[in-house]
């Protein structure tokens, strides 16, 4: 559950996380996160997502394949939300591994959420 401090450790860690970037429509970036979001892996993911958010009207972070969401990952989502609440959308929130921490921390209601990335794209393209 480290955030900034662990950044230097991330290089030593066999990082079990991946982010796939898709650009389904102009202005919409879908970032599919796979693996474990802990204090070691989150800083690198946050950097990637921040870069994408800078060039997107909508950033859909698909957490449907996330296997672990630690408090540093929650802090990451809050930071992205703080930067611009209109840009960040969460997809894949039915994933139990994500839903439970989001519910316990009361953060689920903070984000604009969709069951799947496709739902998000459909909703955002017509808005």
């Amino acid at each position, binding site marked *: *559950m*480290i955030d*900034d401090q662990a950044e230097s450790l991330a290089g030593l860690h066999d990082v079990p996380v991946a982010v796939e970037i898709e650009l389904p429509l102009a202005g919409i970036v879908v970032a599919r996160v796979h693996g474990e979001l802990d204090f070691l892996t989150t800083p690198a993911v946050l950097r990637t997502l921040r870069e994408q958010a800078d060039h997107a009207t909508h950033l859909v972070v698909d957490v449907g394949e996330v296997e672990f969401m630690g*408090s540093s990952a929650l802090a990451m989502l*809050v930071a992205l939300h703080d930067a611009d609440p209109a840009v960040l959308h969460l997809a894949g929130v039915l994933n139990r591994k994500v839903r439970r921490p989001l519910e*316990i921390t009361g953060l689920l209601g*903070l984000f604009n959420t969709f069951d799947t990335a496709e739902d998000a794209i459909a909703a955002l393209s017509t808005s």
Partner: protein
Amino acid sequence: MIQAAGGRDLPRRRDNVQTLDGSSDPQVPFGPALETDEARSAEALRLAAVARYDILDTPPDGAFDRVAALAARWMDTPIATVTIVDEDRIWFKAAHGLDGVTQVSRESGLCSSAIQQAEPYMVADALTDARTTANSLVHGGAGVRFYAAAPITTSDGHRLGTVNVLDMQPRDVAESDLSVLSDLAAIVMDELELRLSALHLVRAERALRDQSERAKAELERFASTLQRTLLPPALPEIPGLELACHYYPTSVRLVGGDFYDVFPIPGGRWAFFLGDVCGHGAEAAALTSLARYTLRAAAWHDPDPVSVLTELNAALLAQPRDGRGMVTVMAGVLSPEPDGGFHITLASGGHEPALWLRPDRNGGTAVTEVWPQGGMIIGAVHDAAFAVREIHLAADEALLLYTDGLTEFPESGSGFRDDDLSRFLAELGHRHPRTLVAELVEKLSTFDPPPADDVALLAFGPVRTDAME
């Protein structure tokens, strides 16, 4: 030829100075040159220089032996030595053609005179030379007739000792041969300088290593001291309630972000909280401190758990953005009830649900989550909402508060995941807070891999009056 008084194994102590000719030698600490204050202070500086090179009483060394051998060969003398002039002795770093001699007294040695001058010193025939006619080496059994020496001079002008050649025959040598002796003395000086800088390097390295080890120990002491200040020294005694707690830190240095406290508030009630700061290290420690003291102060001001969490939320969001962090907290108030139970008001700030252990109909334990749903993590948003649950904790029941380090283990390991904790508690066969915490801690120590995050545990339950006695 020349014999040492005591052979090879003579102790190299100043109080056991030998003579070259086997005669006993009265100790004369200083020669005539040291009769003035000026001379004495110059000698003190010279001795300090000798000490600086830390060469006295060191074992034989090939480099110096070769210089002595070279001097003997070049000058064609049976004996050549490299000597250092100490306070009351002349110590031989190298001795070619002398067997087993390690030192002689300053009085009997010839190089006491040789270090008085910067140029090479030569006695062509010691029997007739006024400078040496009184010397015991010349008139004793040694029978030295020829002696030449060049001083070993430091860059700041101190003459530490000499490179010497000796013969039993009188002779004369050319100026150029004497300058060879000076060159050899300069080589000895270079060797001493090299040796000294290597010595300094080793010492500096050792000092650095010692320093870094001290700094490391200091840091760990500091961290564990800080850690202790973040935890209550002991839980209070609450009449009719058994309380137990445990803190499992994953690392001494990564001062953790878990905390808890139980303390009295006005009206015969007790406030408690248990929380988890997102992060580790110094920043998390600072945040832990802020959270702990804000919660304590807020509970005194208004013990209602929702207003306590609201105040902490405001305090965290008032922090400068770069020092901001999030905290999950379970906070509550305990009020004793006439029936021996306790009324508990529990509010969650995005924290793991508490676990309520109650007897079930079959004589076992039922474990339910007490989850004031909707309580938000603290420090995330300004208008955070906090929910409350109220329960009556009856005798023979217990409530466990914990941080998520207890339940977040990788799929592949043996740690708790999902409902494992509830199942473990249900299968314990009792609901005694102290035993329950002890058994959890025991279980925790068997997990492979061990917990990746700190674990804080706080458990309490009403005790029957008869059980208290």
